[in-house]
């Protein structure tokens, strides 16, 4: 396995190029080779990292140090001292006052990478999930005990102050959602944990459910106290047999210890939990479809408003939160809002759990502070690309955004991603190298959506099916330019007209592909060539003779 140990990035904005970035780049290539480090160190250009007056810049990971301005003559020192011997070359560092925005943020973390910071997964992989005492030994249920000594309003205040935002995909402020439910004056309310986790490529919630189920029970009890609920449901994806089993064991133990049931901690607060297993439909992760499903109806989304916070399960005010969101709650109560805000970025405090898959050397799962970049994740945690160079990534599972190479350095937090018009979603990171064809990827995604569309609203039901057919045609080499226009229209209309998030987000990877990889899609249509050599192109026999591409298939046949 070729695992990259360090990464060298050379800035490549117009100013840097004018000041010799290309020469610096080649000097690095040469010296790295001279020192026999080519296998361990990757080198690439980095674009669009914000303004600075020390161009060209050289950024080296995992230490996250920034050198600048770097001249070809400086390269020998940096390679010898830093990359070979591991000493930072102090005199070439960029003065801190030269840095702003993203660069400043990067520089402020100098030496702190790689920094896995486990809040959500703190106990996972350490404790025995089937033993409540293991959880109690690590401060378990202390937050619940503390909260019962406060008022519900105080509790919601802490969550609001912490800045916690929903990890189920949309990033809605959690404290605000709690206050909506708390505000309603109705005697019966519910708390629901969304553990449907049906987004392909996401398995973060499963780890928590399997590895630390009591954290969810404690968090749900805290939430119930804060919003005034006395009953809760954990809606677990049906395929998660082990998670369902362990959650049931945990609930039983919590009842035996008096941590669920009547008058918890001798207070007036009573709360009990049910486990509800899903039946494998993606749509049941959508909160209103999930509620319908618990009620025993077809899993179809409701029209909103009214929102679940006022009219949810059995028509009562209902709080729906994701597993990862909830797993943050006990730690926030124990350590305080300020502590939580000290992690991550101002707009998105805390950590995020990412599941990494695709063409990288190490797949799996990490929990890191919000605001880390995709490039950092790939190089530091996933130990570099496997079998080629970075082409794109899909964040957030099937409904997520496609991130092209030039957005690799965008900090991964809700607001930075929103500014870049992409979404963070559930935290799945599918990393693709140049061998992945965008048309093929889109086809696979739309195939998923056309099966998972619940069929209630026409734009989604028909739009997903039609888009899939068009993509199949393009992949077969029989797509037309009209198809391309239709596809664009479909992507827009899926987003604008669908009733719920399923159809709305089905169009988003499509839209991204048409924006960032238009030429590649067009080449399937105009040239009948799949640049990644993946699509069947049943026309076959395409010869590459020198630079010439001979096409033995009639245009538009």
């Amino acid at each position, binding site marked *: 396995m070729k695992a990259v140990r360090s990464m060298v990035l050379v800035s490549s904005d117009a100013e840097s190029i004018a000041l010799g970035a290309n020469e610096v780049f080649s000097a690095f290539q040469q010296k790295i080779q001279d020192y026999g480090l080519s296998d361990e160190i990757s080198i690439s250009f980095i674009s669009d990292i914000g303004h600075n007056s020390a161009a060209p810049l050289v950024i080296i990971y995992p230490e996250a140090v920034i050198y600048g301005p770097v001249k070809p003559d400086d390269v020998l020192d940096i390679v010898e001292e830093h990359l070979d011997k591991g000493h930072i070359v102090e005199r070439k560092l960029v003065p801190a006052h030269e840095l702003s925005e993203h660069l400043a943020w990067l520089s402020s973390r100098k030496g702190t990478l790689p920094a896995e910071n486990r809040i959500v997964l703190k106990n996972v992989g350490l404790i025995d999930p089937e033993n409540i005492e293991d959880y*109690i030994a690590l401060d378990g249920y202390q937050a619940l005990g503390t909260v019962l000594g406060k008022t519900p309003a105080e509790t919601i205040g802490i969550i609001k102050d912490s800045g916690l935002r929903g990890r189920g995909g949309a990033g809605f402020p959690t404290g605000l959602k709690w206050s909506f439910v708390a505000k309603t004056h109705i005697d019966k309310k519910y708390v629901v944990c969304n553990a449907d986790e049906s987004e392909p490529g996401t398995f973060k919630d499963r780890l928590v459910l399997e590895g630390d189920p009591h954290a969810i029970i404690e968090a749900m009890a805290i939430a119930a106290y804060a919003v005034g609920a006395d009953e809760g449901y954990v809606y677990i994806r049906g395929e998660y047999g082990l998670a369902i089993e362990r959650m049931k064991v945990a609930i039983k133990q919590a009842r035996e210890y008096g941590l669920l049931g009547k008058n918890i901690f001798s207070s007036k607060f009573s709360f009990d939990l049910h486990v509800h297993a899903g039946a494998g439909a993606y749509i049941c992760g959508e909160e209103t479809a999930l509620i319908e499903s618990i009620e025993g109806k077809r899993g179809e989304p409701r029209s909103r408003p009214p929102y679940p916070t006022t009219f949810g399960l059995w028509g009562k005010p209902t709080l729906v939160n994701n597993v990862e969101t909830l797993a943050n709650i006990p730690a926030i109560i124990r350590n305080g809002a300020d502590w939580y805000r000290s992690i991550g970025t101002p707009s998105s405090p805390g950590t995020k759990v990412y599941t990494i898959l695709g063409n990288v050397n190490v797949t799996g799962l990490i929990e890191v502070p919000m605001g880390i970049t995709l490039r950092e994740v790939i190089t530091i945690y996933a130990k570099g690309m496997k079998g080629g160079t970075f082409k794109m990534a899909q964040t957030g599972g099937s409904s997520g955004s496609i991130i092209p190479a030039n957005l690799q350095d965008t900090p991964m937090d809700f607001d930075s991603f929103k500014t870049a018009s992409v979404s963070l979603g559930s935290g799945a990171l599918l990393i693709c190298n140049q061998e992945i064809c965008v048309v093929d990827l889109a086809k696979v995604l739309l195939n998923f959506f056309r099966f998972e569309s619940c069929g209630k609203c026409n734009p989604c039901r028909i739009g997903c099916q039609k888009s899939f057919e068009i993509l199949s045609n393009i992949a077969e080499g029989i797509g037309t330019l009209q198809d391309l226009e239709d596809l664009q229209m479909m992507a827009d209309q899926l987003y604008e007209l669908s009733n719920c998030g399923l159809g709305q987000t089905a169009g988003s990877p499509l839209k991204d592909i048409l924006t960032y990889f238009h030429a590649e899609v067009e080449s399937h249509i105009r040239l009948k060539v799949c640049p990644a050599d993946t699509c069947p192109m049943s026309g076959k026999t395409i010869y590459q003779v020198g630079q010439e591409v001979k096409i033995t298939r009639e245009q538009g046949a």
Partner: protein
Amino acid sequence: MPTIKSLDDLTRIREEVLKKQELITTSGKTEIIVGMGTVGRATGTQEILTAILSYIEEHNLGNVIVRQTGDMGLDSFEPVIQVILPGKERVTYGKLNPEIVKSILSNHVIGGKIIEEFKVER
């Protein structure tokens, strides 16, 4: 079964558990922790666990405690186990099969020598 009626109760139980756990660590017992989440199971931790238990039985290792836990997020390396010798750092091993596990038990658990080849750096 103790019922927890107050924060004091909770603290008391917590301390009891911690004491129990400390007894384990100071009594010179070795801990072996097996990752038994879905990925672990799918890649065969059940067999690993069986191999560990039968090795312990065969060799009469009285001072070893075997525990289970959830997935550790190391999917590329499953099946994964961790070994903690008394007073030593936690060592994580990955990509195991029953044969390798036996050699970990004889070299590391009994012999005290870490097998670098299968160690997973976190």
